[in-house]
């Protein structure tokens, strides 16, 4: 039982971390809550469904197109919506409202185009789980954990070692000073959306394969990802990853004691505890 819950917690944590890291990356650089990040996840899942299940394209080709699509979508929401608002000196609250509007708009669009019923991508046939240490895990779940770990490590190295990654951290740290050194913050904003949304695209594909597609799936994931980001320290990408795994583990171990219907309640109780006693999160800095 313990091992099974541990593995379930890790799988949930891996998925949350894919949601939270992209969101946190965008937040740390652009300094506003991009809730529509959730719907980028959903859209990439549906895009894969459309290309692979409807049009019958090659699976891997469809996957790559879906990631590019997610990236482009993030880039365009920034350019078409957020940038225009920033130009008009809109406050971060206005940007947050706009992102909620975008979320609802795209969710409704999916409802309109694909209907409310659950869609199955159906690439992976239902497979028997593998037994490891008395716990059952499916091959797809192993892939989810491995992909998320590889992605998060590459994101970390990218931010630490490359010039663009460092410039992104510089803008996150102090946008005005970065500008005086010749770093264009608008360009960096675009990059944060491109990279953050690509990670969201990958999350959408993996979740779509694991749990099937629903128009609201991204919103639900976003709420969890957001919770994880706050627990870990909002604005800190490593913090959001730590928060994700913590959240995944606590949720799953919580149902050892409580009925499984309380899973979400457990997540939000942790959120409240953190907001009350450590609002800056685990790795966040008190300002």
């Amino acid at each position, binding site marked *: 039982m313990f091992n099974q819950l541990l593995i379930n917690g890790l799988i949930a944590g891996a998925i949350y971390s894919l949601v939270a890291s992209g969101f946190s990356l965008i937040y740390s650089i652009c300094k506003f809550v991009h809730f529509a990040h959730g719907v980028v996840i959903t859209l990439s899942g549906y895009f894969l469904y459309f290309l692979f299940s409807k049009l019958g394209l090659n699976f891997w080709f469809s996957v790559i197109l879906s990631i590019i699509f997610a990236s482009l979508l993030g880039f365009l929401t920034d350019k078409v919506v957020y940038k225009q608002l920033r130009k008009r000196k809109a406050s971060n609250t206005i940007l947050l409202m706009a992102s909620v509007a975008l979320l609802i708009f795209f969710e409704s669009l999916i409802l309109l185009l694909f209907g409310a019923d659950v869609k199955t991508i159906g690439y992976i046939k239902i497979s028997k789980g593998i037994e490891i240490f008395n716990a059952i895990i499916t091959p797809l779940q192993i892939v989810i954990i491995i992909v998320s770990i590889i992605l998060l490590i590459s994101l970390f190295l990218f931010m630490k070692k490359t*010039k663009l990654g460092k410039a992104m*951290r*510089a803008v996150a*740290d*102090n946008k005005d*000073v*970065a500008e*005086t*050194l010749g770093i264009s913050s608008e360009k960096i904003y675009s990059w944060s959306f491109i990279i953050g949304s690509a990670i969201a695209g990958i999350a959408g594909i993996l979740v779509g394969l694991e749990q099937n597609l629903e128009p609201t799936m991204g919103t639900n994931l976003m709420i969890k990802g957001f919770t994880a980001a706050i627990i870990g320290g909002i604005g800190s990408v490593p913090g959001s990853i730590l928060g994700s795994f913590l959240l995944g583990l606590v949720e799953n171990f919580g149902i050892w004691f409580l009925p499984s219907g309380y899973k979400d309640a457990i997540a939000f109780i942790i959120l409240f505890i953190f907001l009350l006693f450590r609002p800056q999160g685990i790795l966040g800095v008190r300002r």
Partner: protein
Amino acid sequence: MLITKNLTAGYKGIEVIKDINFKIEPGEIVAIIGPNGAGKSTFLKSIFNLAEVYSGRIYFKDKDITDFETHELIYYGISYVPQGRLVFSNMTVLENLEMGAFIFNDKKLIKNNLEHVYREFQVLKRKKDELAGNLSGGEQQMLAMARALMQSTELLLLDEPSLGLAPKFVSEIFEKVLKLKSEGISIIIVEQNAKKAVEIADRTYIFEDGKIALEGGKEILKDPRIKEIYFGGR
């Protein structure tokens, strides 16, 4: 080297400085002093295109740079060190310096500049892997200056480098400024510490209410009008 003609600038349509005619020759240190709110920092920012210019022109080496973007100015050899020792506090000292050289892609040039900066500021070399946020105030100011020097600068704009620093560091900062001058860098320094600034400057402008009230050499502090500018009501 840099000349402004009838420069009027400010923020959001409000004119903070009016009709400023300013000049700095190559290799000079020019100090700008004056009471709070006189527009000293705004003047520096308007040169670096961080404030809105409403009328007048700015010339750098006989080239009209009034409409140049901030990052273009860096290429032309003008660097700006903002007020309040602004460093990237979550990045290491070395990363801060690398960001100073963001506009360059030539690795060899960056390395040479880095070595030069390390020679000038040995404390930064010792602490290159520490987070900039953990440095002392004086060290952070050194880092902010060093970061600007990574840009192979010809004209350095320093906005209140001694603000809020311990006296020991204030002297050190001013010594560095003199050292930079000896290397041929022209420096415009805005200062609250009027006495020290005038001491190291070749010429001094005194700003009052967004205008140049007085201009002169080291004798400027003996001018009887100083009292009126700093303390006189109107």
